[in-house]
């Protein structure tokens, strides 16, 4: 009887701690975001220039060819096939066409790498810890597709 209640109270405490921790972080995030937005507003012009410059650089140098490019690479249990959409010389979308042998929980975790790749406009990003195999598979498949797009 006693053990049951001790365990129960422990579990509630742990859950409360995690939820509390998350709430504090959310509040901090909001403050940070406000500060960041203000800073961004101030440097908006500089930022714009930087973007224009980088776009120029992209257009003249390593831009990708527009189109939908396919790539395949080894994941955890088998091949992962992806489609990379390139519009206006940059990566706009990445979708997983097939990943039959991957486990659901792992694959959905590994998909977090896709926004990272789109942000970086390159497949050279860190893999997702905990889902290393599947995210490495996605990364390598995108690399292959981008090689096609760069030709």
């Amino acid at each position: 009887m006693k053990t049951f209640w001790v365990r129960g109270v422990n579990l509630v405490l742990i859950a409360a701690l995690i939820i509390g921790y998350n709430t504090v972080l959310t509040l901090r995030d909001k403050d940070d975001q406000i500060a960041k937005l203000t800073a961004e507003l101030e440097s908006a012009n500089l930022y714009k220039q930087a973007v224009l410059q980088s776009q120029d650089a992209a257009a003249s140098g390593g831009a990708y060819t527009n189109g939908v490019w396919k790539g395949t690479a080894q994941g955890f249990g088998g091949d992962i096939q992806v489609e990379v959409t390139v519009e206006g010389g940059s990566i706009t979308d990445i979708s997983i066409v097939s990943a039959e042998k991957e486990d659901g929980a792992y694959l959905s975790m590994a998909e977090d790498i896709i926004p990272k790749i789109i942000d970086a406009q390159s497949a050279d990003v860190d893999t997702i810890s905990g889902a290393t195999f599947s995210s490495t598979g996605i990364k390598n498949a995108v690399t292959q597709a981008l090689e096609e797009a760069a030709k």
Partner: protein
Amino acid sequence: MNKIDIHNLTKKQRRQMHSWLRAAIQLLYFLFLPSAYTAAFAGVKYIFTQLGAGEKIGLTSFVSVLIVLCLYTIVFGRFFCGFACAFGSFGDAVHAIYVWVCKKMKKKTVKLPEKVTEKLTMMKYVVLAVIVILCFKGVYSQTQGYSPWDVFSMLHAFNFKLGGYLLGVVLLVLIMIGMAVQERFFCRFLCPMGAVFSWLPMLPFFTLRREREQCIKGCSACTKQCPSDIGLPEAGSMNVSGDCFQCQKCIDTCPRANIHCGLPGIKGNEVIFTIIRALILLGLFIWLGI
């Protein structure tokens, strides 16, 4: 062919039916849903990695598997461990092969003395603590290739690129030797997920219990049969041992049929209740998209 009457089985037939049912459930889970235990534990690792990095803990797929399995265990006891965990089933198979070989060779099986096993039970908490601290410090990813679970999952997925996994392979082989000698060796002594489960406040409604007043004096058949050497709680008690895998082997060994795990009040519905629990778990897994 003689017909089998379900309601008038001999003791031996009943025992056989129970062990076949358990083996069938284990085999199906092993073949089709082998990744739940690593996914749930990846949830634990993820939470501590995020805490260590000062990042938010999101409800990722790993965390959902962890939460759902913990809730299931609170309600039904460690049924997942006893019937659905791929690594636990693997251990049962290794042990069964060892016992079978010993029988064929007419040799006695080696057994660890109870004093040793009692101490080894604490090992799993050490394993959990070490992994959790490594995650918190953010250095867990450097131990890639050390985990015997990774090696096992890769072999299960027919992925044989085991270069860089030497330590993991060695550990897996050592664990397999332990699994052979001692039933549920890994689950009882080393499993970090089991350590988490054993701390949960498990409800006493659907777990194994015995009617103590009808016991033969001095009989401890159930404790001897139990892979965790548990003296079962009495009916009506709130105690559920954290090391009970709900494997139900004690049910068939009891000479007085005192042990039950079905719905309270209805006797002899263990088979149906076992199937129901397995189906509920299956439903949860499908819902989670494992």
